[in-house]
Protein backbone atom coordinates (compact mmCIF):
# COMPACT_ATOMS: atom_id res chain seq x y z
CA UNK A 1 0.00 0.00 0.00
CA UNK A 2 2.79 2.36 1.02
CA UNK A 3 4.69 1.53 -2.16
CA UNK A 4 1.63 2.30 -4.27
CA UNK A 5 1.24 5.73 -2.67
CA UNK A 6 4.93 6.47 -3.31
CA UNK A 7 4.58 5.41 -6.95
CA UNK A 8 1.47 7.59 -7.41
CA UNK A 9 3.20 10.57 -5.77
CA UNK A 10 6.28 10.07 -7.95
CA UNK A 11 4.08 9.95 -11.03
CA UNK A 12 2.29 13.16 -9.99
CA UNK A 13 5.64 14.91 -9.44
CA UNK A 14 6.90 13.64 -12.80
CA UNK A 15 3.81 14.75 -14.68
CA UNK A 16 3.86 18.11 -12.87
CA UNK A 17 7.51 18.68 -13.76
CA UNK A 18 6.86 17.75 -17.39
CA UNK A 19 3.90 20.12 -17.44
CA UNK A 20 5.91 23.00 -15.99
CA UNK A 21 8.76 22.42 -18.45
CA UNK A 22 6.28 22.14 -21.31
CA UNK A 23 4.44 25.28 -20.31
CA UNK A 24 7.68 27.24 -19.89
CA UNK A 25 9.11 26.17 -23.20
CA UNK A 26 6.05 26.16 -25.45
CA UNK A 27 6.45 29.65 -26.84
CA UNK A 28 9.76 30.72 -25.39
CA UNK A 29 12.11 28.39 -27.24
CA UNK A 30 13.28 30.71 -30.00
CA UNK A 31 16.75 30.86 -31.45
CA UNK A 32 18.65 34.20 -31.53
CA UNK A 33 18.14 34.30 -35.31
CA UNK A 34 14.38 34.06 -34.90
CA UNK A 35 14.45 36.67 -32.15
CA UNK A 36 16.38 39.13 -34.28
CA UNK A 37 13.87 41.30 -36.11
CA UNK A 38 16.66 43.10 -37.90
CA UNK A 39 20.01 41.41 -38.26
CA UNK A 40 22.85 43.17 -36.46
CA UNK A 41 24.91 42.78 -39.61
CA UNK A 42 22.90 45.49 -41.36
CA UNK A 43 23.48 47.97 -38.53
CA UNK A 44 26.50 50.20 -38.74
CA UNK A 45 28.34 51.57 -35.71
CA UNK A 46 28.22 55.28 -34.95
CA UNK A 47 31.38 57.10 -36.09
CA UNK A 48 33.90 57.64 -33.29
CA UNK A 49 34.26 61.35 -33.96
CA UNK A 50 31.56 63.30 -32.12
CA UNK A 51 30.85 65.74 -34.94
CA UNK A 52 30.61 62.95 -37.51
CA UNK A 53 28.46 60.90 -35.12
CA UNK A 54 25.97 63.73 -34.62
CA UNK A 55 25.84 64.33 -38.36
CA UNK A 56 25.18 60.65 -39.04
CA UNK A 57 22.51 60.48 -36.35
CA UNK A 58 20.75 63.48 -37.84
CA UNK A 59 20.97 61.96 -41.30
CA UNK A 60 19.13 58.79 -40.21
CA UNK A 61 16.55 60.72 -38.20
CA UNK A 62 15.90 62.98 -41.17
CA UNK A 63 15.46 59.97 -43.43
CA UNK A 64 12.93 58.56 -40.95
CA UNK A 65 11.04 61.85 -40.74
CA UNK A 66 10.85 62.00 -44.53
CA UNK A 67 8.85 58.78 -44.59
CA UNK A 68 5.90 60.46 -42.89
CA UNK A 69 3.56 62.28 -45.27
CA UNK A 70 3.55 66.04 -44.72
CA UNK A 71 -0.06 66.52 -45.71
CA UNK A 72 -3.19 64.40 -45.83
CA UNK A 73 -3.09 60.66 -46.17
CA UNK A 74 -5.69 57.92 -46.29
CA UNK A 75 -5.52 54.88 -44.02
CA UNK A 76 -7.66 51.84 -44.76
CA UNK A 77 -7.96 49.35 -41.92
CA UNK A 78 -9.12 46.12 -43.58
CA UNK A 79 -9.37 44.41 -40.19
CA UNK A 80 -12.10 46.68 -38.84
CA UNK A 81 -13.32 47.99 -42.23
CA UNK A 82 -12.63 51.60 -41.39
CA UNK A 83 -11.23 54.34 -43.59
CA UNK A 84 -9.65 57.44 -42.16
CA UNK A 85 -8.34 60.58 -43.76
CA UNK A 86 -5.67 62.00 -41.53
CA UNK A 87 -2.58 64.08 -41.09
CA UNK A 88 0.30 63.12 -38.83
CA UNK A 89 -1.49 64.83 -35.91
CA UNK A 90 -5.20 64.56 -36.52
CA UNK A 91 -8.00 62.54 -38.05
CA UNK A 92 -10.17 64.53 -40.49
CA UNK A 93 -12.57 61.81 -41.58
CA UNK A 94 -13.36 58.46 -40.01
CA UNK A 95 -15.77 56.27 -41.95
CA UNK A 96 -17.19 52.80 -42.25
CA UNK A 97 -16.08 51.04 -45.39
CA UNK A 98 -16.11 47.58 -46.94
CA UNK A 99 -12.99 45.83 -48.13
CA UNK A 100 -12.18 42.55 -49.90
CA UNK A 101 -13.90 39.40 -48.70
CA UNK A 102 -10.87 37.17 -49.19
CA UNK A 103 -13.12 34.75 -51.04
CA UNK A 104 -12.04 32.73 -54.05
CA UNK A 105 -13.83 32.12 -57.31
CA UNK A 106 -12.81 29.52 -59.86
CA UNK A 107 -14.34 29.36 -63.31
CA UNK A 108 -15.17 25.68 -63.64
CA UNK A 109 -14.88 25.65 -67.42
CA UNK A 110 -11.57 27.46 -67.89
CA UNK A 111 -10.01 27.00 -64.44
CA UNK A 112 -9.39 30.76 -64.13
CA UNK A 113 -9.14 31.77 -60.50
CA UNK A 114 -9.78 35.07 -58.70
CA UNK A 115 -9.01 35.90 -55.06
CA UNK A 116 -10.98 38.86 -53.81
CA UNK A 117 -8.53 40.63 -51.51
CA UNK A 118 -7.92 44.32 -51.03
CA UNK A 119 -4.22 44.83 -51.70
CA UNK A 120 -2.14 45.91 -48.70
CA UNK A 121 0.75 48.32 -48.65
CA UNK A 122 1.30 51.92 -49.66
CA UNK A 123 -0.41 53.34 -52.72
CA UNK A 124 -1.34 56.79 -53.96
CA UNK A 125 -4.32 58.43 -55.61
CA UNK A 126 -3.68 58.00 -59.33
CA UNK A 127 -6.84 59.63 -60.62
CA UNK A 128 -10.30 60.79 -59.53
CA UNK A 129 -13.42 60.03 -61.51
CA UNK A 130 -16.84 61.64 -61.21
CA UNK A 131 -19.93 59.60 -62.05
CA UNK A 132 -17.91 56.51 -62.87
CA UNK A 133 -19.34 53.65 -64.82
CA UNK A 134 -18.38 50.15 -63.87
CA UNK A 135 -17.00 47.95 -66.60
CA UNK A 136 -18.10 44.54 -65.36
CA UNK A 137 -15.19 42.12 -65.49
CA UNK A 138 -15.57 38.47 -66.48
CA UNK A 139 -15.92 37.21 -62.94
CA UNK A 140 -19.02 39.36 -62.39
CA UNK A 141 -20.80 37.38 -65.12
CA UNK A 142 -19.31 34.02 -64.29
CA UNK A 143 -20.37 34.34 -60.65
CA UNK A 144 -23.95 34.77 -61.86
CA UNK A 145 -23.61 31.71 -64.07
CA UNK A 146 -23.70 33.90 -67.19
CA UNK A 147 -21.32 34.19 -70.11
CA UNK A 148 -19.39 37.46 -70.47
CA UNK A 149 -20.93 39.47 -73.34
CA UNK A 150 -19.10 39.78 -76.63
CA UNK A 151 -20.29 43.35 -77.10
CA UNK A 152 -18.11 45.59 -74.92
CA UNK A 153 -20.90 48.15 -74.50
CA UNK A 154 -23.03 45.63 -72.63
CA UNK A 155 -20.49 45.52 -69.82
CA UNK A 156 -21.03 49.06 -68.55
CA UNK A 157 -23.09 49.72 -65.43
CA UNK A 158 -23.73 53.39 -64.49
CA UNK A 159 -25.23 52.74 -61.02
CA UNK A 160 -23.00 50.34 -59.16
CA UNK A 161 -20.08 52.60 -58.22
CA UNK A 162 -21.84 55.64 -56.80
CA UNK A 163 -20.86 59.24 -57.54
CA UNK A 164 -17.07 59.12 -57.40
CA UNK A 165 -14.20 56.68 -57.81
CA UNK A 166 -10.67 57.22 -56.55
CA UNK A 167 -8.19 55.10 -58.47
CA UNK A 168 -5.23 53.73 -56.51
CA UNK A 169 -3.79 51.46 -59.17
CA UNK A 170 -4.03 47.97 -60.64
CA UNK A 171 -7.76 48.39 -61.21
CA UNK A 172 -8.53 49.05 -57.53
CA UNK A 173 -10.72 51.99 -56.51
CA UNK A 174 -12.34 53.63 -53.51
CA UNK A 175 -15.91 54.11 -54.68
CA UNK A 176 -19.55 54.31 -53.63
CA UNK A 177 -22.03 51.48 -53.36
CA UNK A 178 -25.67 50.65 -53.70
CA UNK A 179 -25.24 48.26 -50.75
CA UNK A 180 -24.65 50.79 -47.96
CA UNK A 181 -26.13 48.39 -45.39
CA UNK A 182 -23.14 46.13 -45.90
CA UNK A 183 -20.60 48.80 -44.98
CA UNK A 184 -18.41 47.51 -42.16
CA UNK A 185 -18.41 43.97 -43.54
CA UNK A 186 -15.68 42.54 -45.80
CA UNK A 187 -17.76 41.80 -48.86
CA UNK A 188 -16.07 43.40 -51.85
CA UNK A 189 -14.08 41.92 -54.70
CA UNK A 190 -11.04 44.00 -53.70
CA UNK A 191 -12.15 47.61 -54.10
CA UNK A 192 -12.98 49.77 -51.09
CA UNK A 193 -16.61 50.83 -50.77
CA UNK A 194 -17.70 53.95 -48.91
CA UNK A 195 -21.05 55.51 -48.07
CA UNK A 196 -22.08 58.35 -50.41
CA UNK A 197 -21.64 61.21 -47.89
CA UNK A 198 -18.22 60.04 -46.76
CA UNK A 199 -17.17 59.44 -50.36
CA UNK A 200 -18.08 62.98 -51.31
CA UNK A 201 -16.10 64.42 -48.39
CA UNK A 202 -13.11 62.23 -49.19
CA UNK A 203 -13.21 63.05 -52.88
CA UNK A 204 -13.22 66.77 -52.11
CA UNK A 205 -10.20 66.57 -49.83
CA UNK A 206 -7.82 64.20 -51.64
CA UNK A 207 -5.61 65.13 -54.54
CA UNK A 208 -3.72 63.16 -57.14
CA UNK A 209 -0.73 61.76 -55.28
CA UNK A 210 -2.35 61.61 -51.82
CA UNK A 211 -0.80 58.54 -50.15
CA UNK A 212 -3.03 55.58 -49.25
CA UNK A 213 -1.89 53.17 -46.55
CA UNK A 214 -3.75 49.87 -46.48
CA UNK A 215 -3.16 47.32 -43.72
Amino acid at each position, binding site marked *: MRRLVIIILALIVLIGTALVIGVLTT*TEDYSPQEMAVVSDSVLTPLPQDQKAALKE*LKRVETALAKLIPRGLYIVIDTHANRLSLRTRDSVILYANCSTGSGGEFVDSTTGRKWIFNTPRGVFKVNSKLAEPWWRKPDWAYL*EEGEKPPKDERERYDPEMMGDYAIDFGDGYFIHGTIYERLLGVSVTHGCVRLGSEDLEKLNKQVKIGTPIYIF
Partner: protein
Amino acid sequence: MVPRSTFSEGAGRRTARPGVVLALGTVMCVSFLSCRHQEAESPSSGSADGKWNRSAAEIEYRFAQIEMQLAQKASPYLVLDLNRGQLLLKLKGTIVWNYPMEFAATDKQEVRKFAERFRDDGKSLARPIIGKHLFAAKDKTPDSILAIVGKVVRVAPELLQRELPEHFLLSWGDGLVLEIHTDITGAPPISKFQNAMAEVRKALQRPFGGVSLVIKVDLEKALTLYRATRQGMPTLVIPPT
Protein backbone atom coordinates in the same frame (compact mmCIF):
# COMPACT_ATOMS: atom_id res chain seq x y z
CA MET B 1 -24.38 55.81 -74.55
CA VAL B 2 -20.73 56.48 -74.08
CA PRO B 3 -19.49 56.28 -70.52
CA ARG B 4 -17.84 59.42 -69.16
CA SER B 5 -15.39 57.42 -67.15
CA THR B 6 -15.06 53.72 -66.77
CA PHE B 7 -12.95 51.15 -65.00
CA SER B 8 -12.83 47.50 -64.20
CA GLU B 9 -11.69 45.91 -60.95
CA GLY B 10 -8.43 44.03 -61.19
CA ALA B 11 -7.73 45.02 -64.76
CA GLY B 12 -6.02 48.40 -64.51
CA ARG B 13 -2.41 49.47 -64.77
CA ARG B 14 -0.46 52.13 -62.88
CA THR B 15 0.92 54.93 -65.00
CA ALA B 16 3.63 57.41 -64.08
CA ARG B 17 2.68 61.01 -64.68
CA PRO B 18 5.31 63.75 -65.04
CA GLY B 19 3.14 66.14 -63.01
CA VAL B 20 2.97 63.71 -60.11
CA VAL B 21 6.73 63.17 -60.20
CA LEU B 22 7.30 66.93 -60.17
CA ALA B 23 4.83 67.38 -57.31
CA LEU B 24 6.45 64.58 -55.31
CA GLY B 25 9.86 66.13 -55.89
CA THR B 26 8.58 69.46 -54.59
CA VAL B 27 7.00 67.78 -51.55
CA MET B 28 10.27 65.98 -50.82
CA CYS B 29 12.26 69.23 -51.04
CA VAL B 30 9.79 71.00 -48.76
CA SER B 31 9.76 68.11 -46.29
CA PHE B 32 13.55 67.99 -46.31
CA LEU B 33 13.75 71.67 -45.48
CA SER B 34 11.15 71.40 -42.74
CA CYS B 35 12.92 68.33 -41.36
CA ARG B 36 16.10 70.35 -41.15
CA HIS B 37 14.12 72.98 -39.27
CA GLN B 38 12.68 70.36 -36.90
CA GLU B 39 16.09 68.84 -36.30
CA ALA B 40 17.42 72.10 -35.00
CA GLU B 41 14.69 72.09 -32.37
CA SER B 42 14.88 68.48 -31.25
CA PRO B 43 17.47 67.67 -28.61
CA SER B 44 19.36 64.52 -29.43
CA SER B 45 21.64 62.45 -27.25
CA GLY B 46 22.25 65.27 -24.82
CA SER B 47 23.98 67.43 -27.39
CA ALA B 48 21.65 70.39 -26.91
CA ASP B 49 23.21 71.33 -23.57
CA GLY B 50 26.69 70.82 -24.90
CA LYS B 51 27.19 67.42 -23.21
CA TRP B 52 27.83 64.44 -25.43
CA ASN B 53 26.23 61.22 -24.24
CA ARG B 54 27.87 58.65 -26.48
CA SER B 55 26.02 55.56 -25.18
CA ALA B 56 22.62 57.28 -25.51
CA ALA B 57 23.55 58.38 -29.03
CA GLU B 58 24.58 54.86 -29.96
CA ILE B 59 21.26 53.42 -28.78
CA GLU B 60 19.38 56.21 -30.55
CA TYR B 61 21.34 55.50 -33.72
CA ARG B 62 20.72 51.75 -33.54
CA PHE B 63 17.06 52.39 -32.86
CA ALA B 64 16.76 54.74 -35.85
CA GLN B 65 18.53 52.24 -38.09
CA ILE B 66 16.26 49.42 -36.97
CA GLU B 67 13.16 51.52 -37.58
CA MET B 68 14.54 52.47 -41.00
CA GLN B 69 14.95 48.77 -41.80
CA LEU B 70 11.43 47.96 -40.59
CA ALA B 71 10.06 50.83 -42.65
CA GLN B 72 11.48 49.20 -45.79
CA LYS B 73 9.29 46.14 -45.24
CA ALA B 74 5.88 45.74 -46.81
CA SER B 75 4.02 44.84 -43.61
CA PRO B 76 3.26 46.88 -40.50
CA TYR B 77 5.22 46.81 -37.25
CA LEU B 78 4.19 47.51 -33.68
CA VAL B 79 5.60 50.28 -31.50
CA LEU B 80 5.07 50.44 -27.75
CA ASP B 81 5.87 54.05 -26.97
CA LEU B 82 6.07 53.81 -23.19
CA ASN B 83 7.37 57.37 -23.04
CA ARG B 84 4.28 58.95 -24.61
CA GLY B 85 1.91 56.16 -23.57
CA GLN B 86 0.95 55.24 -27.12
CA LEU B 87 0.48 51.91 -28.79
CA LEU B 88 1.14 52.31 -32.52
CA LEU B 89 0.98 50.31 -35.69
CA LYS B 90 3.26 51.76 -38.33
CA LEU B 91 3.53 50.99 -42.01
CA LYS B 92 6.53 52.31 -43.96
CA GLY B 93 7.39 54.58 -41.04
CA THR B 94 3.92 56.16 -40.89
CA ILE B 95 1.35 55.73 -38.13
CA VAL B 96 -1.67 53.80 -39.42
CA TRP B 97 -3.24 52.98 -36.05
CA ASN B 98 -2.71 54.29 -32.55
CA TYR B 99 -4.23 54.05 -29.11
CA PRO B 100 -3.33 55.66 -25.79
CA MET B 101 -2.00 53.22 -23.20
CA GLU B 102 -3.00 54.11 -19.67
CA PHE B 103 -1.29 52.38 -16.80
CA ALA B 104 -2.21 52.75 -13.15
CA ALA B 105 0.29 54.82 -11.13
CA THR B 106 1.41 51.67 -9.31
CA ASP B 107 2.29 50.13 -12.65
CA LYS B 108 4.96 52.71 -13.45
CA GLN B 109 7.66 50.53 -11.97
CA GLU B 110 6.37 47.59 -13.99
CA VAL B 111 6.42 49.69 -17.17
CA ARG B 112 10.06 50.60 -16.54
CA LYS B 113 10.88 46.95 -15.79
CA PHE B 114 9.14 45.87 -18.99
CA ALA B 115 11.16 48.31 -21.10
CA GLU B 116 14.44 47.31 -19.45
CA ARG B 117 13.78 43.61 -19.90
CA PHE B 118 12.65 44.10 -23.48
CA ARG B 119 15.80 46.02 -24.39
CA ASP B 120 18.07 43.66 -22.46
CA ASP B 121 20.82 46.26 -21.90
CA GLY B 122 20.44 47.59 -25.43
CA LYS B 123 21.01 44.16 -26.97
CA SER B 124 17.49 43.76 -28.32
CA LEU B 125 15.84 47.02 -29.28
CA ALA B 126 13.31 45.19 -31.42
CA ARG B 127 11.74 41.78 -30.91
CA PRO B 128 9.13 39.80 -32.80
CA ILE B 129 5.81 38.90 -31.25
CA ILE B 130 6.16 35.23 -30.43
CA GLY B 131 2.79 34.52 -28.92
CA LYS B 132 -0.80 35.68 -29.16
CA HIS B 133 -3.55 34.16 -27.10
CA LEU B 134 -7.24 34.99 -27.27
CA PHE B 135 -8.92 34.30 -23.93
CA ALA B 136 -12.45 35.30 -24.81
CA ALA B 137 -14.28 36.81 -27.75
CA LYS B 138 -17.70 37.51 -29.21
CA ASP B 139 -18.81 37.36 -32.83
CA LYS B 140 -19.18 40.80 -34.41
CA THR B 141 -22.12 39.94 -36.65
CA PRO B 142 -24.81 37.34 -35.93
CA ASP B 143 -24.29 34.16 -37.98
CA SER B 144 -27.85 34.37 -39.33
CA ILE B 145 -27.10 37.74 -40.95
CA LEU B 146 -23.76 36.58 -42.28
CA ALA B 147 -25.41 33.53 -43.80
CA ILE B 148 -27.67 35.83 -45.86
CA VAL B 149 -24.84 38.20 -46.77
CA GLY B 150 -22.55 35.28 -47.62
CA LYS B 151 -25.17 33.88 -49.97
CA VAL B 152 -25.58 37.22 -51.75
CA VAL B 153 -21.87 37.90 -52.15
CA ARG B 154 -21.00 34.20 -52.59
CA VAL B 155 -18.53 34.08 -49.75
CA ALA B 156 -18.35 31.57 -46.89
CA PRO B 157 -19.89 33.29 -43.81
CA GLU B 158 -16.88 32.32 -41.66
CA LEU B 159 -14.66 34.46 -43.92
CA LEU B 160 -16.87 37.45 -43.20
CA GLN B 161 -16.95 36.95 -39.44
CA ARG B 162 -14.86 39.11 -37.16
CA GLU B 163 -14.20 38.12 -33.56
CA LEU B 164 -14.52 40.99 -31.12
CA PRO B 165 -11.92 40.24 -28.47
CA GLU B 166 -12.78 40.50 -24.79
CA HIS B 167 -9.30 39.68 -23.56
CA PHE B 168 -6.11 38.67 -25.35
CA LEU B 169 -2.38 38.81 -24.82
CA LEU B 170 0.72 39.39 -26.89
CA SER B 171 4.09 38.04 -25.76
CA TRP B 172 7.69 38.64 -26.81
CA GLY B 173 9.51 35.90 -24.89
CA ASP B 174 11.44 36.32 -21.62
CA GLY B 175 8.11 36.60 -19.82
CA LEU B 176 7.23 39.89 -21.54
CA VAL B 177 3.47 40.09 -21.90
CA LEU B 178 0.96 42.77 -22.85
CA GLU B 179 -2.60 41.95 -21.86
CA ILE B 180 -5.40 43.72 -23.66
CA HIS B 181 -8.91 43.94 -22.20
CA THR B 182 -12.12 45.40 -23.61
CA ASP B 183 -15.55 46.11 -22.14
CA ILE B 184 -17.48 43.24 -23.66
CA THR B 185 -18.16 39.81 -22.22
CA GLY B 186 -17.27 36.98 -24.52
CA ALA B 187 -16.68 33.27 -24.38
CA PRO B 188 -13.46 31.25 -24.73
CA PRO B 189 -13.02 30.61 -28.47
CA ILE B 190 -11.09 27.35 -27.98
CA SER B 191 -11.17 25.91 -24.47
CA LYS B 192 -10.96 26.99 -20.87
CA PHE B 193 -8.06 24.58 -20.41
CA GLN B 194 -5.92 26.48 -22.93
CA ASN B 195 -6.77 29.72 -21.16
CA ALA B 196 -5.69 28.14 -17.87
CA MET B 197 -2.42 27.01 -19.49
CA ALA B 198 -1.77 30.55 -20.76
CA GLU B 199 -2.36 31.92 -17.24
CA VAL B 200 -0.08 29.27 -15.71
CA ARG B 201 2.65 30.07 -18.24
CA LYS B 202 2.41 33.74 -17.33
CA ALA B 203 2.47 33.01 -13.61
CA LEU B 204 5.48 30.71 -13.95
CA GLN B 205 7.46 33.41 -15.75
CA ARG B 206 6.93 35.92 -12.97
CA PRO B 207 9.50 34.56 -10.48
CA PHE B 208 12.04 34.63 -13.31
CA GLY B 209 11.54 38.33 -13.94
CA GLY B 210 8.56 38.15 -16.29
CA VAL B 211 6.59 41.37 -16.60
CA SER B 212 2.97 41.61 -17.60
CA LEU B 213 1.43 44.95 -18.53
CA VAL B 214 -2.33 45.31 -18.65
CA ILE B 215 -4.21 47.88 -20.72
CA LYS B 216 -7.81 48.55 -21.60
CA VAL B 217 -8.65 49.26 -25.24
CA ASP B 218 -11.84 50.33 -27.04
CA LEU B 219 -13.57 47.41 -28.66
CA GLU B 220 -13.14 48.55 -32.26
CA LYS B 221 -9.48 49.42 -31.72
CA ALA B 222 -8.94 46.07 -30.02
CA LEU B 223 -10.45 44.32 -33.03
CA THR B 224 -7.84 45.91 -35.29
CA LEU B 225 -5.01 45.25 -32.86
CA TYR B 226 -6.02 41.63 -32.45
CA ARG B 227 -6.36 40.99 -36.18
CA ALA B 228 -3.37 43.03 -37.34
CA THR B 229 -0.85 41.56 -34.91
CA ARG B 230 0.63 38.19 -35.76
CA GLN B 231 3.43 35.93 -34.65
CA GLY B 232 6.72 37.32 -35.92
CA MET B 233 5.49 40.92 -36.13
CA PRO B 234 8.42 43.20 -35.29
CA THR B 235 7.96 45.32 -32.18
CA LEU B 236 9.89 48.33 -30.97
CA VAL B 237 9.71 49.58 -27.41
CA ILE B 238 10.42 53.22 -26.61
CA PRO B 239 11.31 53.31 -22.89
CA PRO B 240 9.83 55.77 -20.41
CA THR B 241 12.07 58.67 -19.45
